[in-house]
Every structure is written in structure tokens, then in C-alpha cells.
């Protein structure tokens, strides 16, 4: 039988998924991949920033001030992507009780909150010269602010429990409720008269942005994704060591890294 002799791609994926669920395996895997992630993050960031800040032409209306877009927009995308990732991991953790999924969900929350915060700050820096105000009660801004509160609620609930895993499950449930709420928040605030510009970069159909501005933007988006990977793997490694502190593999690592043996 052919199916038995050589593992299919699906079999390999299933094997990989189950191996990843094992804390020592994941710890080693994350340690191997982190340098690659940070290297790729820095390289893409340098290319993207060079393209965005030096090569791309100035905007005909906003001049050079628009260049903050190369930070603002990738961070805004990441604030949503990280939330989706957190909720996805939270769902896996709740349904199959995978320890690692709980950790990934909880450790991505502070990163997502940071992305959301950077989006709000850069947006307000951009808003001051363009709109003449640091902040307006506009639909996009308000729903991004609500997103930040959702992140903070998840983080706060996670830390309110004495048992880490129980806290992770409760916070993952809150994150899932937030997923239901996010589109509602988005569309309820969209009904207000809105100052923020509409979508310019579209997956389907032509984007309303010139290529020389688009490619640095996409490179920066790639860079922020890689940064998420680097940061998340590092945070997850630490959280794993804390959670598994009593286990042999964690103790062996702690003894090996201790300054006096």
C-alpha cells in the first residue's frame, strides 16, 4: 500500500502540529527560529523604511507628512491580525485544552495591545497637522480605542487569576466574546460621520495607491508580521519555562544557564 510507505503532506502536518504541542520541543524550536525572525524583521524594515522614507514620492496633497503611513498602517493591520491570532489560539486552547495554544494566545495579547497603542499614537501625530486635532471621535479611531480596551481587559483578566491556565482559559473566552463584538463596534461607529479616510489598499480589485508607495507599505507589513513572530516566540519561551518550572526539561535548562552551574 502506497499510503503506508511514504507519509503524505497531511501526515507530516499532523505530526508537526502534535510535536509543537510539546513544551520542550516548542522551546527548542522557538529558540532556533528566533534569530531568523529578528534578522528578517530588521532587513525588511530597513528596505521598507528606505523605500518609504526616501524612494517613494511625496504626496501631492499631504507632502512629506504622509510618510508616517509606513508605520501607522502596518501597525493598524497588525492590531487586528494579532487579535484574530489571539482569538484563534484561544479557541484551540479552549476546545482541545492545548497548553501551548493558551500560552500563545495570552502572550500575543500584550504585543497586540502595543501595536494598537502605536497605531493610536502615530494616528494622532498624523492627525494634528492634517486635521488640526490630536483626536476626534471618529469611527475608525473610536473602534481602535475600543480594541485597545478589549486587549487590556483580556490582559487584566488573565492576571487576575492565581492559576495561570485557568486565567488563560477565562481570558481566551473573553477574547472570543470580543471577536463577536468587534464587527458590531465597527459598524455601529461607522454610522457616525467620519473623518478618517476610506480603504486605499484592497485585496480584491485595484488599490487606490501608487506602486512606489504600495511596495514599501507591504514590505513594512511583512516586517511587522515577522516582528510579531520574533516577539511572540520569545515571550512564549519565557512563559513556558515559568509554567513548566517544576518539570525536568525546564530544570535542566535553568541549571545549564545558571551562572555558577
Amino acid at each position, binding site marked *: 500500500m502506497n499510503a503506508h510507505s511514504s507519509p503524505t503532506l497531511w501526515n507530516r502536518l499532523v505530526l508537526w502540529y502534535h510535536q509543537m504541542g510539546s513544551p520542550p520541543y516548542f522551546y527548542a524550536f522557538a529558540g532556533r527560529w528566533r534569530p531568523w525572525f529578528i534578522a528578517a524583521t530588521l532587513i525588511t524594515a530597513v528596505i521598507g523604511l528606505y523605500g518609504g522614507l526616501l524612494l517613494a514620492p511625496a504626496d501631492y496633497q499631504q507632502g512629506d507628512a504622509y510618510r508616517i503611513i509606513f508605520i501607522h498602517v502596518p501597525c493598524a493591520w497588525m492590531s487586528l491580525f494579532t487579535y484574530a491570532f489571539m482569538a484563534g489560539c484561544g479557541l484551540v486552547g479552549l476546545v482541545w485544552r492545548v497548553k501551548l495554544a493558551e500560552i500563545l494566545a495570552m502572550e500575543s495579547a500584550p504585543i497586540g495591545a502595543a501595536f494598537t497603542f502605536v497605531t493610536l499614537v502615530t494616528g494622532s501625530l498624523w492627525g494634528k497637522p492634517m486635521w488640526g486635532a490630536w483626536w476626534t471621535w471618529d469611527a475608525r479611531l*473610536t473602534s481602535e480605542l475600543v480594541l485597545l480596551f478589549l486587549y487590556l481587559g483580556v490582559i487584566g483578566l488573565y492576571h487576575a487569576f492565581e492559576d495561570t491556565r485557568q486565567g488563560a482559559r*477565562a481570558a481566551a473566552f*473573553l477574547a472570543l466574546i470580543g471577536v463577536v463584538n468587534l464587527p458590531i463596534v465597527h459598524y455601529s461607529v461607522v454610522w457616525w460621520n467620519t473623518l478618517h479616510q476610506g480603504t486605499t489598499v484592497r485585496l480584491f480589485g485595484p488599490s487606490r495607491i501608487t506602486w512606489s508607495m504600495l511596495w514599501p507599505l507591504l514590505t513594512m507589513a511583512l516586517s511587522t508580521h515577522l516582528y510579531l513572530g520574533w516577539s511572540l516566540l520569545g515571550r512564549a519561551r519565557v512563559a513556558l519555562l515559568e509554567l513548566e518550572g517544576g518539570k525536568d526539561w525546564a530544570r535542566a535548562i535553568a541549571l545549564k544557564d545558571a551562572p555558577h552551574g
Partner: protein
Amino acid sequence: MSAPSARAGYVAVLRRDLLLAWRRRGEAALPVLYALIVATLFPFALGPEGALLSRIAAGVVLVTVLLAMLLSLDGLFRPDWEDGSLEQLLLAPQPLGLLLAAKILAHWLTTALPLLLASPLLAAMLHLPTAVLPVLMAALVLATPLMSLLGALVVALTVGTRRSGMLLALMLLPLMVPVVIFAAGAVSAAQQGLPFIAPLAWLGAALVLALVLAPAACAAALRIALDA
């Protein structure tokens, strides 16, 4: 001996919670007093000018009612958790969601209903135009059960934790944003003489959805938070 029916369990929980609230009826007045005091602070802070107050009256009443309900939410499960009766509910043969629905209904009757009765007084104190009052009341009738249901869902997650006051606000208020937007939208539309049915209909739709889903989700949240 066979287990009592689900209906009997529902009625028993409802009756118990209402009876407990009745025995401590002084406490039921506290949210109303709180709302009254918060609403009184606004004219002090903003000045007693009638035109300004009547413009913000509906929003102030909405937010005040929301905050008063938020303060009362911690008492929804915590006393039962401390005296162990919550675990009996978890073990009961009847569906947990149904029993929690009874608890939520009892909470709404004992907390939101007094606030609803007091809100015309609050609105009058802030010079809300009389013609708009029915719209505000309709918005509150639809919004307060939503607050109770969503609040129960969130407070169920915090039962096992020690401190929960500020955390509860942080978790619940983002979920409340759409409720406040639609309720305030209905009232401000009515105040400007525009049609106000659409936001009320949205609130009603959300309420129906929450009535169906929230008790079951609340049961799941409680089982997660108590690791049962």
C-alpha cells in the same frame, strides 16, 4: 426519585433570588441612590444652564444607569459563590443556562427595574424635553436587559478571582459601546425630530440575540472560570 423539570428549576431559582432581594430590600435602593447622586453632579460640574442640560440629559441618564448596573453586577454571582450555592447550581440536573437565565432575570427585576422607574425623575432633573421621554424609556427598556445579559456573561468570568471591581469595568464597558451608541442615537434622533425607529430596532434585534445566546455563553464562562 426523578429530577424536577427544567421549568420547576427555573421558577425555584427565580423565586429564591427574588426572595433574597426582598429580604434585603434596603440594598435594592442603593443603585437608584447612586444614579441620583451621579446625575446631580452633572449640573454642578457643567453649570445649571437649561439648554445645555437638556441637550446632554439623555446621554447622562443612559451612562448613569449603565454605571449603576455595573456596580451591582458583582453581587450577581459572588454571594452564591461564597456560600457554595453556585456550585449546587452547576451540579443541578437542569440546564445551567436556563438556571442562569433565571438569575439574570431576577437581577434585572431587582436592579434595572428600580432604575427604570427612577429615570423619568433623572430626566426631568436634567430638563429632558417631555416629548423625548417615551423614546428614552423605550431605549432603556431595550438596553437594560442587554446590559444585564452581557454583564452576567462578563462577571461570570471573574467569579473565581479575588479583585474584580475595576477589572469588571475594563472588560464590560467596551462591550457596552454599541448599546450606548444605539440607545443614545435613538434619543438624539427623536430630539432632532428625525425618525428614531431604526436604532431601537437594532437594540431589539441585539436583545433577542443576547436572550438566546448569552445564558448559554454565561454557563460556559462560569464553568471555565470555576474550572468545573
